[in-house]
């Protein structure tokens, strides 16, 4: 049954204004998707330019100032424009209401306003890039960004850009938390929510509670730059370490805004592709919220050598170890989910395996940076660069790409090319490891971070890393190309190609504008038996469908509470 004729959310209205002024969460999700992918490639180009520059000691293609602008904008664009909105806003917007069987998020107009704020913030960032070029590092550390940086207009523009993007993130978080609290269908208790929604809910809490502080910090930088109020300027009695406290109070929870949604995607992938109920559902759900809470009491581990007092450093170091426990529980539970399953190694599952590898290394290398003794040698070296790339780019990118491939049939009604997907995924993971594993060793050998030019003995590590960076860039380009081609040329996708049991797979191959005519019956989100493989359909069909609604599966009668 081809999915082209009937009206769905893609062809129900045409034209720019029907997309730009849409209130439909699915269209907003798609627009976020393409915007964040575009910003990711822009940031990627900066990264590749830096890698070419760092291929050998001495100046290759850019000057010192240009290099400083490159790493600043690479960091700022990737953090504020790409990785914070990517999984929650792009995939979350598209999937969350459908997973809840709802028609839309709680505040559709606010959702649209968030996307428009994202665009405005992006314009501010690009204009700051074109003005004088921001060279303060994405962290805007105080006396340099507020007083000494020559890029006056760029700092003010970028700071307002970050302020606006902060509100875009707050409103997204606000929307999701309100939707999960108030718009769950009857029968969907908190412990029958899919784990992706738990992760998005925990991320929403962090977005609400942490982002305002970066808003006020950015405003203070702008006011400090324009009116010289001197709160962070030591020449006027201010305190630069106070800026670091205010900055990292947001920025550490922000890294959990980046990783938690990816973990949510992973819970869905492991369970669906192993055709098995997720192992330790309540532990994973509680781990998401635990990580969200603990993320607020650990920010000082970024400041062990910044002049922070020893007492507070010790407390921060101890608290940071508590983050490791819920994370470990999640990873072990996912591996346990694979036990005795029937694993379908499709592209999303390769990204899930990649996530285990990359987040394994990323998370464990965090232990060196939490232990007070080893952090002093490793702080602000390439060890830290490799650590956060493994955790942020490695794991969050795996979640983003895994989620894109997993929900691609539902988004466009087309299947992506499986073989190409698997090859590109392996290429990306290998390329990533070749890029960032040598940087760990460069870091322990003492190569400092943000260096335009480095000593002779670090050359070998940078050369391998540059080679790996191009391998990564190539794989990402292939992925982009075959995904775009699959929109028109991909095989027509069935309603449920993977056999996922969450509610978004109970909609038509391409969902209609308001998702469900009437909210489907809510069962256990990981009860794989309600769908079985059907050869003709080349997808999964409900075991006993609701008469008249072929896609909606009837939950099993005795599917008691999922405890």
């Amino acid at each position, binding site marked *: 049954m081809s999915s082209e004729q009937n009206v769905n959310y893609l062809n129900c209205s045409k034209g720019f204004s029907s997309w730009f002024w849409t209130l439909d969460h699915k269209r907003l999700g798609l627009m976020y998707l393409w915007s964040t992918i575009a910003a990711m490639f822009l940031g990627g180009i900066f990264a590749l330019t830096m890698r070419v520059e760092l291929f050998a000691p001495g100046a290759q293609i850019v000057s010192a100032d240009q290099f400083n602008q490159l790493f600043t904008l690479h960091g700022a664009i990737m953090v504020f424009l790409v990785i914070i909105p990517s999984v929650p806003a792009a995939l979350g917007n598209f999937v969350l209401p459908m997973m809840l069987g709802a028609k839309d998020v709680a505040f559709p107009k606010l959702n649209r306003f968030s996307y428009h704020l994202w665009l405005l913030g992006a314009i501010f960032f690009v204009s700051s890039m074109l003005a004088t070029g921001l060279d303060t590092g994405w962290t805007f*550390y105080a006396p340099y960004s507020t007083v000494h940086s020559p890029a006056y207009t760029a700092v003010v523009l970028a700071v307002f850009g970050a302020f606006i993007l902060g509100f875009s993130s707050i409103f997204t978080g606000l929307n999701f938390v309100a939707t999960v609290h108030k718009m769950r269908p009857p029968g969907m208790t908190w412990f029958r929510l899919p784990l992706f929604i738990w992760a998005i809910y925990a991320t929403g809490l962090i977005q609400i509670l942490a982002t305002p502080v970066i808003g006020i910090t950015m405003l203070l930088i702008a006011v400090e730059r324009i009116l010289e109020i001197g709160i962070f300027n030591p020449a006027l009695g201010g305190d630069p370490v106070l800026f670091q406290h205010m900055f990292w109070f947001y920025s550490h929870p922000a890294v959990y805004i980046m990783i938690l949604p990816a973990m949510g995607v992973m819970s869905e992938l492991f369970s669906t592709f192993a055709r098995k109920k997720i192992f330790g559902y309540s532990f994973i759900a509680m781990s998401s919220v635990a990580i969200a809470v603990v993320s607020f009491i650990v920010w000082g581990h970024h400041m062990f050598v910044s002049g922070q007092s020893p007492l507070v450093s010790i407390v921060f170091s101890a608290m940071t170890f508590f983050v490791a426990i819920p994370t470990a529980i999640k990873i072990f539970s996912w591996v346990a989910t694979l036990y005795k399953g029937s694993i379908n190694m499709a592209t999303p599952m390769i990204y899930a395996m990649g996530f285990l590898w990359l987040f394994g290394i990323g998370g464990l290398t965090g232990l060196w940076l939490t*232990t007070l003794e080893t952090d002093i040698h490793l702080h*602000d070296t390439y060890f830290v660069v490799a650590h956060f790339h493994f955790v942020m780019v490695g794991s969050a990118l795996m979640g983003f790409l895994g989620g894109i491939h997993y929900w691609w049939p539902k988004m466009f009604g087309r299947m992506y090319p499986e073989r190409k997907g698997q090859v590109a995924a392996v290429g990306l993971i290998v390329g990533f490891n070749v890029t960032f594993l040598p940087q760990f060793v460069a870091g322990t050998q003492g190569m400092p971070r943000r260096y335009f030019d480095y000593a002779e003995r670090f050359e070998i590590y940078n050369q391998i890393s540059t080679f790996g960076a191009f391998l990564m860039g190539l794989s990402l380009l292939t992925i982009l190309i075959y995904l775009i081609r699959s929109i028109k040329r991909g095989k027509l996708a069935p309603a449920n190609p993977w056999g996922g049991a969450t509610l978004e797979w109970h909609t038509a191959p391409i969902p209609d504008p308001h998702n469900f005519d009437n909210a489907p019956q809510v069962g256990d989100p990981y009860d794989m038996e309600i769908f079985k493989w059907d050869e003709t359909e080349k997808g999964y069909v409900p075991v006993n469908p609701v008469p008249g609604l072929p896609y909606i599966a009837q939950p099993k009668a005795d599917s008691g509470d999922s405890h």
Partner: protein
Amino acid sequence: MIPKMLSFFHFLPQDGEGDFFFPAQASNLAKFNDWLFYYILIVSAVFFFAIMLSAGYFSWKYHKSRCPEPQPSPSHSNTIEFVWSVIPTIFLAYMFWQGFVGFMNRQNPPADAYQVHAQGQKWSWIFQYPDGTESNVLHLPLNRPIEVSLGSNDVLHSLFIPAFRTKMDAVPGRLTSLWFTPTMIGEFEIFCAEYCGTEHSSMITTCKVETQAEFDAWLEEAGDFISKLPPVEAGKRVFAMKGCAACHTVDGAVGIGPTFKGSFGTERKLTDGSKVTMDYDYVYESLMDPQAKLREGFPPVMPTFQGQMDDEKIRVLVEYLKTL
């Protein structure tokens, strides 16, 4: 490239030379730091390979081609969850404890530590010794505890000596400190580890560890070099020590600041269009208040040397500039 890769094989740290992960162990802090690093490496490697091997094995054994239907298996068990929470916690607690012990050792320098002050400024370090001598290179006596107090004239800098495994930010507006005992003779790199602007990556100097005798000889000789050396030579030393070379070149090349090659005594254009001859008064005033008469076409980034250069040093500096 081959010799470097050979270092891979002598995995455990040796005194003389670094190993795969670390540069040479040149201070008392290095041994404990490296040991703790390897402890965490082993614990992490064990857990990591446990996860990856079991994930790999499960995906091979339960691949859909081998078992098309998932067999029934428990979907939750509190005991397993409890076990794989407690066991990592034990390792983490020990990690924290060792880190805490090492950190406390770094906080309390011995009472008889030799005091050196490191003043960071945009793109060079100046090390001041108790008797007032200043130098760009950190000369240190062997096997004697050194306490380095850190300050900065403008932005955040960070004194990072990889071979000593130690690092501390130089924060403007306060004094921070670190201590260590150099245990190996030789020259070790000093990097700036906190981003501080254009020349952040060339804010590099060396730390030279000598025997006590050599150190005393150097200190005595460097002490009153102005009276001992001819003025031009002393001026050259002041030019290097104060980090002027970071922005002003002497060979005519373009730098952050104007080049001094053949510039002394000649007319110079200022930003406000007026002209001034580069004489002793202009050099003196530019050192005290750099932005007063700013040369045209150059950024106002020169720090002030108010209170850091006495007239003697300026006199010999001008002598040196005359010879360029």
